[in-house]
């Protein structure tokens, strides 16, 4: 059974462990170069001290230390990566298997639901431990202080364990994987948000004591190495995991602790055609993703004024920021342009997830009833693509709206049209994600979500890595994200946008062509 769990997670685990360990270690090795010029160092310190930057990156604890520098630049990203991955993997292998009834046969054996859950959690916990250990080992190999490396590795791994425990809990509460995943990610998101507010607003710094992300930061890797906050995280995680296991012993297979209404009147809206039905299935996910994306961009909007104001008053710092790849950060347009280019990461992931849901309907044989209706394969797939595109457009608009509201609330000036231009500028990369996901789902490949995230999240990571190690421009250019012009600071790069869109359309057409010709798996 542990073998079964392991087989389901090994590929993603390898990638996450590599990233969690590799990125900070790579950044640590660049420390000497960055700190060679005293003027740059001063600029960096000034940027890092800005409340808005603190909000995003956390408190700069030991910039002078290669390890401390790596933690500051990558700690939040790797913690989020490990946490979200651990949460989603947990719901996927537990509730995600239980929901379509795959555990029914498994549980006919001598092992109880609690035993099965415990074994899966064991495997997942091991992976987080592995990610933490690899992070620490890589940082030691990169020549940083072993104690700091150990604390940072422990923090990263513990955050993964915490996320697994939370997701194990939500998997007991809810009957569907989507709800369990959503709730777990919401808990992590709330924790991150609390940490951000605590870091950004001086008077509220105590808030960090209420968030797992805060505890990881309060362990001060390379700057005191405190174990207390991490022990707190261990304790909370243990309590959550124990609660999840107790809950697993008190419920029936396939059921959740939260009772759902067993009877309801029919809601016939959006059931009149496959296109309408695709839209209907898309509504909830769009609402969920909108909340996350909206909250994030609202926060960025709120900080935009403070950051840009600070940079405008420090020409030297702004110059330095310009040389490290952040151009025009002294203007709201520039700052928002920089953060808008990231939008393709979540919106592309949304698109990939929708196509993965379509692929799941096929392998769960739900699709048979529709496939037996007088509808061409192209319409089945096309309905999903159309609904997903509509959802992506909504998310893109929500990001613009949230940023605009945030900037306005903070007393800044950003035209709504500029915000919209900025977010819609990322659409070609989102479409690339969709195109890859359509090809993957159309061809019946596994791991549709992961493949669909390659242009967005993968491209972003590639760009960060390439920047961190001063890779040749060609490597950076492989990332679609690197071809996005900083809009609204500058105009749209229409050539790049059209090329990427055309490529996306070609990928989707190829997907549709393969889908039309192949055997369905149901």
């Amino acid at each position, binding site marked *: 059974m542990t073998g079964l769990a392991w087989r389901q997670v090994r590929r993603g685990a390898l990638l996450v462990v590599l990233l969690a360990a590799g990125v900070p270690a790579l950044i640590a090795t660049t420390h000497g170069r960055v700190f060679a010029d005293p003027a740059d160092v001063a600029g960096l310190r000034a940027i890092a001290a800005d409340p808005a930057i603190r909000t995003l990156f956390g408190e700069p604890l030991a910039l002078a230390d290669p390890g401390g520098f790596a933690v500051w630049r990558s700690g939040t990203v790797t913690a989020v990566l490990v946490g979200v991955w651990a949460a989603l993997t947990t719901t996927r292998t537990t509730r995600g298997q239980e929901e379509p009834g795959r555990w029914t046969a498994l549980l006919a054996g001598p092992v109880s639901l609690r035993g099965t859950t415990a074994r899966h959690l064991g495997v997942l916990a091991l992976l987080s431990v592995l990610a933490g250990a690899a992070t620490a080992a890589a940082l030691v190999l990169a020549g940083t202080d072993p104690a700091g490396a150990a604390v940072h590795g422990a923090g990263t791994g513990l955050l993964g364990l915490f996320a697994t425990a939370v997701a194990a809990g939500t998997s007991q509460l809810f009957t569907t994987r989507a709800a369990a995943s959503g709730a777990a990610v919401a808990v992590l998101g709330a924790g991150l948000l609390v940490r951000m507010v605590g870091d950004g607003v001086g008077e509220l710094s105590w808030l960090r004591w209420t968030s797992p992300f805060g505890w990881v930061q309060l362990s001060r890797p390379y700057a005191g190495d405190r174990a207390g906050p991490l022990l707190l995280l261990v304790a909370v995680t243990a309590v959550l995991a124990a609660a999840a296991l107790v809950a697993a012993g008190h419920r029936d297979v396939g059921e959740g602790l939260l009772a759902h209404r*067993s009877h309801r009147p029919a809601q016939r809206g959006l059931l*009149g055609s496959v296109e309408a*039905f695709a839209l209907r299935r898309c509504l909830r996910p769009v609402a969920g993703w909108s909340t996350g994306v909206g909250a994030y961009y609202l926060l960025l909007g709120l900080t935009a004024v403070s950051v840009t104001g600070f940079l405008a008053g420090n020409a030297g710092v702004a110059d330095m920021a310009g040389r490290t790849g952040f151009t025009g950060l002294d203007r709201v347009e520039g700052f928002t342009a920089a953060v808008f280019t990231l939008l393709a990461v979540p919106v592309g992931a949304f698109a990939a997830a929708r196509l993965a849901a379509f692929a799941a309907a096929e392998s769960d044989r739900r699709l048979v*009833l529709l496939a037996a209706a*007088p*509808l061409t394969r192209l319409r089945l797939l096309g309905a999903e693509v159309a609904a997903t595109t509509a959802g992506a457009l909504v998310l893109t608009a929500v990001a613009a709206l949230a940023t605009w509201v945030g900037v306005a609330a903070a007393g800044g000036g950003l035209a709504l049209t500029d915000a919209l231009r900025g977010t819609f500028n990322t659409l070609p990369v989102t479409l690339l994600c969709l195109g890859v996901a359509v090809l993957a789902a159309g061809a019946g490949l596994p791991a549709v979500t992961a493949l669909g995230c390659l242009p967005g999240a993968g491209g972003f990571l590639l760009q960060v890595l390439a920047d961190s190690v001063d890779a040749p421009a060609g490597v950076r250019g492989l990332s679609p994200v690197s071809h996005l012009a900083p809009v609204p600071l500058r105009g749209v790069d229409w050539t790049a946008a059209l090329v990427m869109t055309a490529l996306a359309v070609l990928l989707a057409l190829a997907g549709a062509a393969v889908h039309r010709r192949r055997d369905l798996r149901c």
Partner: protein
Amino acid sequence: MDATTRTTPGATTGATRGGPAVHAVGLTKRYGSTTAVDDLHLRVPAGEVFGFLGPNGAGKSTTIRLLLGLARPSAGSARVFGVDAADVERAHRLLAHVPADVALWPHLTGAEVLHLLAATGPGTDTAYRDELVERFALDPGKPARTYSTGNRQKVALIAAFATRAPLLVLDEPTSGLDPLMEREFRRAVAQARQRGQAVFLSSHQLAEVEAVCDRVGILRAGRLVEVASVADLRSLHRTEVSASYTGAAPRLSGLAGVEAVETTAPGRVRFTLTGPPGAALASLAAADVTALAVREPSLEEIFLDYYGEGGSGEQVRP
């Protein structure tokens, strides 16, 4: 339950369309080295209820997937009323399907699933559908995730029977139904036949096949080994005859169609008979028969012969 009533292609028009309800010519499906369906030739006329039988893994579901265009044949072709099965948009206007293992969208209630299938399907008689919901005792207000296997199957069956599609393709549709619902199912098949709908029914339930089917086809290891009416199948098979007599022992060995002659007791004989019984009866008459019992083989015994579980492993043919 006031969902879209749409112009329904009348079942009767099915008969006048371009060909038999199901027409397979050299239909073959290979998965790597396994041949799931092997050179299948089959013709099911419009309006016929056709039983499709065979042991596990014989290729019944694969044949159905080929008929529905869910999978493509490695060789040969399948046509539905003359329309190539690959042209699903046209072919599926003429059929409704119940899969072997019904999976539904867990969030939708039964009523919502029925509404969706009516809206996307080949046209539904909503009044008849509501009647079927009553007859199959389905609670349509529950989310599909709370349905048992049998209830999920009922949803798909109701949706299929409520269409006026001239062909119903049902893959083991009663595997999860209780005896009461099984009876409703047989009624619904009979009503479909009355309306002129053809039914292609894959099944393991021999009593059901015997009760509802006009003809049966028997598939074994991907090959069609027999197609016959249920009555013909019987006559092709051995009848067991026991007789008591007072005269001299009848001379049965060597008579055409007589096999396994056995003297069970003094004055009692048992043998199996295939084909016309005249010669055997004449021989018995000469022996002053006092009692005669003829036992038809059960359908089950016939199928065990075909399925190859009867001992020799080879199918027994007359």
